[in-house]
């Protein structure tokens, strides 16, 4: 099986995630879609690391995960704040540059 299939799969997932980001209104779901995209990226990284036969790709993926974790922490915090201020988690409700 050609290694490219993994990349194709990743691309597919990435696109789906992207579409989700654009379509969904619930901030948390949007966030999940972003995670999905990140994971897709990770998949490519790992696939490439196997293709090239060194671990740099995996290390990158590792960093991506960490960053994603950090991002999730902050992002969710923001969502919570947002929810507190306007009792909704819809990104469309946050259309003003003020609380």
């Amino acid at each position, binding site marked *: 099986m050609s290694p490219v*299939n993994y990349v194709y799969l990743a691309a597919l997932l990435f696109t789906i995630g992207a579409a989700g980001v654009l379509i969904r209104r619930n901030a948390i779901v949007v966030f999940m879609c972003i995670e999905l995209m990140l994971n897709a990226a990770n998949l490519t990284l790992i696939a490439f690391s196997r293709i090239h036969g060194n671990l740099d790709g995996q290390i990158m993926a590792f960093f991506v*995960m960490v960053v994603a*974790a950090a991002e999730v922490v902050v992002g969710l915090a923001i969502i919570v704040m947002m929810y507190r201020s306007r009792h909704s988690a819809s990104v469309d409700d946050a259309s003003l540059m003020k609380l």
Partner: protein
Amino acid sequence: MLSSASTAYAAHIDGAALAATSSGTSAGEAAAFWVLGTIAVIGALGTVLLRKAVHSALCLAGTMVLLALFYLANGAYFLGIVQIVVYTGAVMMLFLFVLMLVGVSTADSLKETLKGQRWLAVACGLGLGLLLISGIGQASVVSFSGLEAANSGGNVQALASQLFTKYVVAFEVVGALLTVAAVGATLLTHRERIEKSKSQREQAEERVRKGTQLPPLPAPGVYARHNAVDRPGLLPDGTPSDMTVSATLRDRGQMREVGPEALHRVAALEQRTADQHGQADHGRMYGEPHDPDRDTDDADDAGQGREARQARDEAREEEAAK
């Protein structure tokens, strides 16, 4: 579905691991790829399309698990585990937690509020996907040049040695990033207290000023015949008080009321005790006439609901009419 998938793959995993070590790819891996890949895509679609956030979260978790399996299949054992433990275990649970916090029942309405947003989104998605795929199509990658060399000393060790030598700076920076993120999160979620907290005294005074229910609420219907939580308790003078029933039951209208018979029975009971103690005439409570035959059949209507009693009363009234 997820669980089934994972179990089905469980047998395969070491084979995949073997495969990963060899530069080629086994037919098993191919099969696994197609099956699990399909499921992963379905999961992703579910994430995007399901209305309830919880469902999408679960789908995402599934997809992640499957991805973790792919990692494993690609010889990234450490990352595979991390993916399952950290991502699916911690992060997704964090997501769910926040979801609960924010409110489970919030489901997106399918109506798109932004004009043309949906079509633009789909267009962008498809366009991007097509472009990516066409881009990848140009890539000339024939085969894996396996990882056995890199993983010879064990995947984790290899990663560690790279992390702490080659990527140590990045590692430290990322660590700092995490710390900052944690601090930032606490900072964000920290709610500034606007007014000073009330002392107990102040709370008491406030209550007095409001003038509503100064003493604590009475206990549930312990004086009632059947001491059930949905029956109002009687106050010392024998009148039932709704306040003894929990607010929830009251609001749901599941409170059972204490009928006159019950009161009567109580009165009769006391009468009998009074008789046994040989008291001449225990002044009847509630102006009830002493009616022995009714006292007798008190026993059998224990636990009947309001409805039954009402039905019987009506029957009695009809008899009275005849």
